[in-house]
């Protein structure tokens, strides 16, 4: 196919719709994979959306300030070398399931290729009202006909993962500002939906371990003494790198559970929970954390936090996380029992480093101790794998010089 569709991405399991704030390209522009082509406002603020294919922008379909469901075609992209095409008829907004995996490089098959779905009239009307994508609904009626109950069930599933969707393609009179009370409420609803889905669908198991941090902290102190203030490393970087390494040892915890299917991911993209000043949180991903040096990780972390606070996150920041790390030690918390961010299968929590009595080799001493917890999806892994992960995490932290 010489043309492809650039769609409103799902920037997380909790996103149902987004408002196009601005285009960064115009028809005729050449774009390359990874280029920021648009700004989209979600409950998490304004996100810079990247494109995942190379080509030439053929047509911009959705105009700035329009709010559209996830999956709506935003623009048409002509592949390099293909001749310009006559403008196609205006596409009907298509919503994909809000909980769909982030897979922007694989657009769904065009509707024309699908078999006609049998839908009862009331089911069709209800689906339109509730923003349910009928192509994602399994019909239970005669010959697979989708009936009202099927749509209601799909809407209930959707409501569990997304805030109430707005009507398709409703031009927002004024884009909501993230600082506004409405935006905060929307983010709260989004978090509520994702976390409720997680606690309902994911059978969590929890493991915790105490880690003697004397050696890594000693190493960090010595390392930082060699550096200028600007280049100093934060303990969080050690934790992120150690998690990435440990996930390399236990890859089952890195990835997704989608459609009753465990999908471990090759790339280790660590979603790092960052609280927002105005309330709520986001978990932008540090890409390929296992392949980055500590300095690169420090840079990536600094960049992420700056962009979170200034509201300049990119779509790939929000969609690519394969696991989540949450560190509440700054706030004095000793242990974190996290709720997994669907469709991920694990969340690692770190508490505060506290001085604690520590018995080792028949001797009692006082050591800086960190409690690491693992919340994992029991559908994807068992406690033994989880235990191996925490063991590996401890081991990598003890060898901080090799991180």
């Amino acid at each position, binding site marked *: 196919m010489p043309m492809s569709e650039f769609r409103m991405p799902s920037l997380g399991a909790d996103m149902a719709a987004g408002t196009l704030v601005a285009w960064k390209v115009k028809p005729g522009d050449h774009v390359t994979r990874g280029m920021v082509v648009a700004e989209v406002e979600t409950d998490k603020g304004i996100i810079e959306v990247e494109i995942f294919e190379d080509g030439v922008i053929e047509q911009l379909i959705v105009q700035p300030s329009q709010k559209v469901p996830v999956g709506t075609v935003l623009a048409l992209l002509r592949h390099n070398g293909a001749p310009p095409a006559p403008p196609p008829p205006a596409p009907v907004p298509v919503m994909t399931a809000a909980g769909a995996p982030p897979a922007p490089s694989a657009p769904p098959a065009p509707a024309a290729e699908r078999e006609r779905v049998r839908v*009862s*009239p*009331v089911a069709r*009307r209800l689906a339109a009202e509730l923003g349910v994508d009928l192509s994602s609904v399994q019909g*239970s*009626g005669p010959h697979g006909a989708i*009936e*009202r*109950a099927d749509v209601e069930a799909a809407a209930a599933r959707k409501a569990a993962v997304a805030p109430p969707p707005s009507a398709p393609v409703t031009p927002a009179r004024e884009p909501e500002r993230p600082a506004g009370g409405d935006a905060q409420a929307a983010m709260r609803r989004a978090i509520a939906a994702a976390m409720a889905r997680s606690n309902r669908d994911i059978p969590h198991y929890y493991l915790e371990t105490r880690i003697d941090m004397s050696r890594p902290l000693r190493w960090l102190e010595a390392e930082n003494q060699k550096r200028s203030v600007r280049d100093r490393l934060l303990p969080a970087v050690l934790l992120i790198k150690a998690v990435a390494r440990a996930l390399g040892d236990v890859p089952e915890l890195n990835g997704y559970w989608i459609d009753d299917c465990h999908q471990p991911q090759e790339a280790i993209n660590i979603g790092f929970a960052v609280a927002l000043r105005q309330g709520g949180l986001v978990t932008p991903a540090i890409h390929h954390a296992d392949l980055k040096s500590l300095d690169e990780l420090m840079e990536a972390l600094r960049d992420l936090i700056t962009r979170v606070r200034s509201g300049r996150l990119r779509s790939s920041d929000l969609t690519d996380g394969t696991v989540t790390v949450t560190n509440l030690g700054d706030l004095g918390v000793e242990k974190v029992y996290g709720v997994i961010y669907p469709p991920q299968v694990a969340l690692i929590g770190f508490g505060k480093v506290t001085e604690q009595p520590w018995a080792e080799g028949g001797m009692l001493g006082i050591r800086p101790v960190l409690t690491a917890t693992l919340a994992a999806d029991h559908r994807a892994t068992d406690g033994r794998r989880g235990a191996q992960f925490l063991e590996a995490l401890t081991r990598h932290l003890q060898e901080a010089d090799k991180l």
Partner: protein
Amino acid sequence: MSGNGQMVPMTYREAVREAMREAMRKDERVFLMGEDVGRYGGCFAVSKGLLQEFGPERVRDTPLSESAFVGAGIGAAMNGMRPIVEVMTVNFSLLAGDQILNNAATILHMSGGLFNVPLVIRMATGAGRQVAAQHSHSLEGWFAHIPGIKVITPATLEDARGMLWTALEDPDPVLIFEHASLYNMAGELPASAGPVDIDRARVRRSGADVSIITYGACLFKALEAAETLARDGIEADVVDLRTLRPLDDETFLASVAKTHRAVIVDEGWRSVGISAEVSARIMERAFYELDAPVERICSVEVPMPYARHLEQAALPQAETIVATVQRMVHAHV
């Protein structure tokens, strides 16, 4: 029901008789005529005792000519009387078809609005009594096709008692279809029971899963089916149309909007019947409420058999309604 709360045991037959008695007492313009309504007391014994009470002027036996006595009724009505004409059974009404269709239904229109025909024609309808192919029709749907008349089908004691007076008050011809199998139906009515409307359908049983739309004797099969279905957790809304012309669309459309499924039960033949009309109106005005195709349960399209088991097999039955609804609702409840 209001007023005197005292309940009186009564059959459907007695309720119709009480209605006629009350009408003749209240309004001296009201009289009854038809075959054997006087000395014999009516073919179905509905008018028994009325001759003795009101005399031969007001309870008149007629010759066996439906065309003649329905025509006479039309003339009497046009001249200020309020006749109740009894046609023994609906098949005999065909002999008066010209009078009903070409005169009663048209005179108001053809006289430029000068002459109303405040005539009431009562007739027995329906099968189930082993009277075979010539006396078992349900042709009320045919008459409901005709503009200019009203067609009402009392099913309950209350309606048998109350619809007649309202029909007599109507300035235009009203045909009352009394299902012959209902005459022996016994129940209780308040002593104060009186006129009821003749233009609204009624929800006789409330439920959220399916609308069973029916009238006449089939109402009781529908209610029986609804009780059976309720044991499976399927709650049926049972709509008694009561009036087939004009149809009270709003009531059954509201029911369908609630349940999203409709089955119409009609003792008439399936093709080109009142059930087809109801189904079409649902399709036209409640299409986007439907969660399943509208179903019809009607009589098998054969001349009504005489043999009891064949006759029963030809008629809509509660079991058929149950099976149809279960298929429509299947796994969703």
